[in-house]
């Protein structure tokens, strides 16, 4: 088993004439918290979208857990063990918090369409297990008391937590968080930090896209910086922080 969980090899993506990603290569090791930062429009979310199959890269590709990732197959990315949250929260608003998490269990359970229609004993047992596991995850992110509320009625911070719980429900090897601290106050950010550290402790590798440089530098083992779609540097926070090109990218000098 290789040390590298996810390797991006010269991933390129164009939108018309705009080069959103220019041959980005990076590698995320098992068990680390990996930060991906860069100014607005640097291509961070585009990178995420290519990785999870929402976009098809125009060049290059990903190797995940020793096998190439198939482009254009979001549900297979989930099967392989990649889960993500969204910069702009995308919950199923008209479903309860518990149901949102239960949908995430889909990929790790077997019963199919026929079983659902016939309501076999095995199906019912499995659905009970799904419910149980979903409750545990809500407890894990500390919103179990909101289980039966519609997702759209949850507070902003709780919605962020619910998205993380839903992503964890797929039992990912790699959890990708797209700006989880956006819009959070200092207390909430502190709680989020503890949550992410806990997730890594429990054996899940975390890829973190974030604007909050302080959070990223304090939390991540290694950091990559994107600017204008190109990788500037990939190293430990102490080195990245002092890199002249990074400072220029952020200050626009």
């Amino acid at each position, binding site marked *: 088993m290789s040390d590298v969980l996810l390797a991006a090899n010269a991933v390129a993506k164009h939108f018309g004439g705009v080069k959103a990603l220019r041959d980005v290569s990076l590698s995320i090791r098992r068990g680390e918290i990996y930060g991906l930062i860069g100014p607005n429009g640097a291509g961070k979310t585009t990178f995420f979208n290519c990785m*999870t*199959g*929402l976009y098809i890269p125009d060049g290059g590709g990903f190797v995940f857990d020793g096998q190439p990732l198939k482009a254009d197959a*979001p*549900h297979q*990315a*989930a*099967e392989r063990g990649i*889960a*993500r949250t*969204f910069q702009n929260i*995308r919950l*199923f*608003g*008209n*479903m309860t918090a518990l*149901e949102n998490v*239960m*949908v*995430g269990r*889909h*990929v*790790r*359970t077997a*019963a199919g*369409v026929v079983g*659902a*229609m016939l*309501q076999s004993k095995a*199906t019912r047992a*499995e*659905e009970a297990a*799904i419910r149980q596991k979903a409750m545990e995850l809500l407890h894990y992110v500390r919103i179990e008391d909101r289980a039966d509320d519609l997702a759209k009625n949850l507070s902003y911070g709780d919605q962020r937590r619910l998205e993380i719980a*839903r*992503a964890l*429900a*797929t039992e990912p090897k790699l959890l990708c968080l797209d700006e989880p601290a956006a819009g959070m106050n200092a207390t909430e950010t502190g709680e989020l930090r503890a949550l992410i550290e806990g997730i890594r402790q429990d054996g899940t590798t975390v890829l973190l896209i974030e604007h909050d440089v302080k959070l990223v530098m304090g939390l991540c083992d290694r950091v990559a910086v994107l600017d204008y779609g190109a990788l500037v540097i990939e190293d430990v926070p102490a080195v990245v922080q002092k890199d002249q090109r990074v400072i220029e990218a952020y200050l626009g000098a």
Partner: protein
Amino acid sequence: MDIFLQQIINGLVQGSIYALVALGYTMVYGIMGLINFAHGEVVMIGTLVSITVTSTLAAAGVPLGLAGLGGLIAAMLVCMALGWSLERIAYRPLRGSPRLTPLITAIGMSIVLQNLAMIIWGRNYLTFPPLLPKVNFEFAGAHFTLVQVAIVLLSAAMMGGLVFLVYRTKLGMAMRATAQNPAVASLLGVNTNRVIAAAFVVGSALAAVAGVMVGSYYEIAHYQMGFMLGLKAFTAAVLGGIGNLAGAMAGGVLLGIIEALGAGYIGDFTGGFLGSHYQDIFAFVVLIIVLMFKPSGLFGEKTGDRA
């Protein structure tokens, strides 16, 4: 007053059938924003398959009740296969194309299915074998038959089953998740292709049951019978708020009752100038009124991104 109650009962029976068919429209629309105009034809195929199977079994000496059950099951299986094939062959290749394209395809499939049925079952009216004994009941001066009772009860049971499927099972949850956001659902590992196919299959199973009901209610069937029924059920779905399950059920029953009352009283209102065979106008007057004043329907939410 007799005629009022009588028409309410008749409307309830007809409305239960509309509701079952409307559910098929609304499920597919809710999940993928497509009006499957071939859905009425699935009902028609259900009726004709059940006639063939029931008559064949009955001719072979099977008791009529059992033969009818065989016909119902055969109709459901054929329609489920048909619904699955429609999605796979006609609609899936058009996923992501402009909204008008699959709509035109749906109308095309409707024509194809009608003609296919004409080739298989011929152009003549077929009689549907009477599955249930002709028992009459009377309540407060209104009459109804065992068939009518069976239709209402069976539709209620089917709808209860569907609500259970959608709100209490894993498949149902995947359906609702896909309806709300297919991209996110697929990122969570939901195979949205399978969920969409399941919506077609489940809707078609309901259509088959509705087809057998229509057949045993009117005791007559024809390759073009699905067209008007499909339009009415579509109207019912719009009336209730398309994409909304409760709306389709309520819209179906309500439309059935509006139509029945309209047919019962139109003669009085127009001094005998228009007779009850003008009942079809009520459904479409309702459709026009809903589209003008409340296009989201009775139960519908705002569908800004879908409309």
